[in-house]
């Protein structure tokens, strides 16, 4: 049953909301049209003038301290090339990997595309999950399959091999490296039981070689 509005409510309704000012309306319009993030020439010029004043560098002692803490971490130049500390190269392969041992030049390795490996090893659907569990020797049927889920994923560079130098266009020599990775997925069920799947994978990296 509709209620009779009080006089106060009627007075409130009679009060019209204030109209937004021109600048605010222009801003709303620009947002709606996707232009609000476009800067005017004047704004860009002022930004450039500000940018001419450079931020101060971090103190030298702090830089040294940071480098000591992070200098041995892999440095990704791009998605496929990673520089890493020579001393962290896998020791079993060192005797064979001439490239890593001669001169103090940058060690480079291809970074395995995580997604690719994960997509192959970690099933994204229930069907795929069952396939992996069923493929595990000793898996015990439906209950086993349905409760195992990927718990962790790891990738190790287990071996590197220098395949020598090839010559490509413009007489530029390139060194070929063969990298062996072992991708490992750990599956875990509700009871805490785990099993691991390992799969070796090879990648070849071609790097421009310096000529003395």
């Amino acid at each position, binding site marked *: 049953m509709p209620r009779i509005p009080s006089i106060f409510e009627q007075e409130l309704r009679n009060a019209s909301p204030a109209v937004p000012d021109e600048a605010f309306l222009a*801003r709303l319009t620009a*947002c709606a049209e996707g232009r*609000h*993030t476009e*800067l005017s020439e004047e*704004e860009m010029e*002022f*930004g450039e*003038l*500000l*940018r*001419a*004043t*450079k*931020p*101060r*560098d*971090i*103190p030298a002692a*702090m*830089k040294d*301290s*940071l*480098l*000591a*803490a*992070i*200098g*041995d*971490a*892999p*440095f*990704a*130049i*791009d*998605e496929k090339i990673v*520089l*890493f*500390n*020579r*001393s962290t190269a896998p020791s079993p392969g060192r005797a064979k990997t001439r490239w890593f*041992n001669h001169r*103090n*030049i*940058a*060690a*480079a390795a291809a970074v395995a595309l*995580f997604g690719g490996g994960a997509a192959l090893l970690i099933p994204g659907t229930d069907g795929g999950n069952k396939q992996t569990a069923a493929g595990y020797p000793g898996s015990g049927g439906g209950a086993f399959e349905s409760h195992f889920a990927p718990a962790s994923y*790891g*990738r190790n560079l287990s071996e590197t091999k220098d395949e020598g130098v090839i010559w490509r266009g413009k007489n530029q020599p390139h060194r070929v490296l063969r990298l062996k990775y072992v991708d490992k997925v750990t599956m875990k069920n509700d009871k805490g039981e785990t099993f691991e799947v390992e799969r070796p994978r090879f990648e070849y990296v071609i790097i421009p070689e310096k000529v003395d």
Partner: protein
Amino acid sequence: MSANEAPATNSPAASAWRDWLAEHAPKLFLFARNQTRTHEDAQDVLQDAIVKLVGKIRSGEFVGGQDSWQPYLYTTIRRLAIDLSRKNDRRKRREDHVSADIEAEQLEAFHPWFDSEGSDGEVRSQLENALKILPEKFSEVIIMKVWGERTFAQLGEALGISQNTAASRYRYGLEALKRELSSARRKGDLSI
């Protein structure tokens, strides 16, 4: 370490990190300065953020390439600065830190935000003061946009706001900065 092993600081990775720091650390540090109260806090926050990033890279947890490092670092610096500020506030409630704050402010004068190369001292000083006066929500956007060279979309992501809000704050901030600097410009002290 055996004779064959290069020290970590001479490794290709260390050299690359050194170059990366030379290019990016100043602007990240400026942002850290803006987010914290003191020079020392800014150092701690920046160092923690970089060490966190590297920890994630080492463990393979970090998703994305080098392009994703800076967005991660801006977000982490901001989060760490907020955490630190809360800790400091709690401590301040327990202790009388008035004299320590005054001392910290005096020490700040010895740690200017901007480099002495490329601009005169008056410009640096006026700009630093103007940024300090600005409300943080404007100054952080200006610092990330102007010196961090982030897009509005990246700003929005790092600050948890829409890119339109980031653009609005940037414009407000620029206007406010212009006003702050205008008197100095009128006097001819500033070239900006």
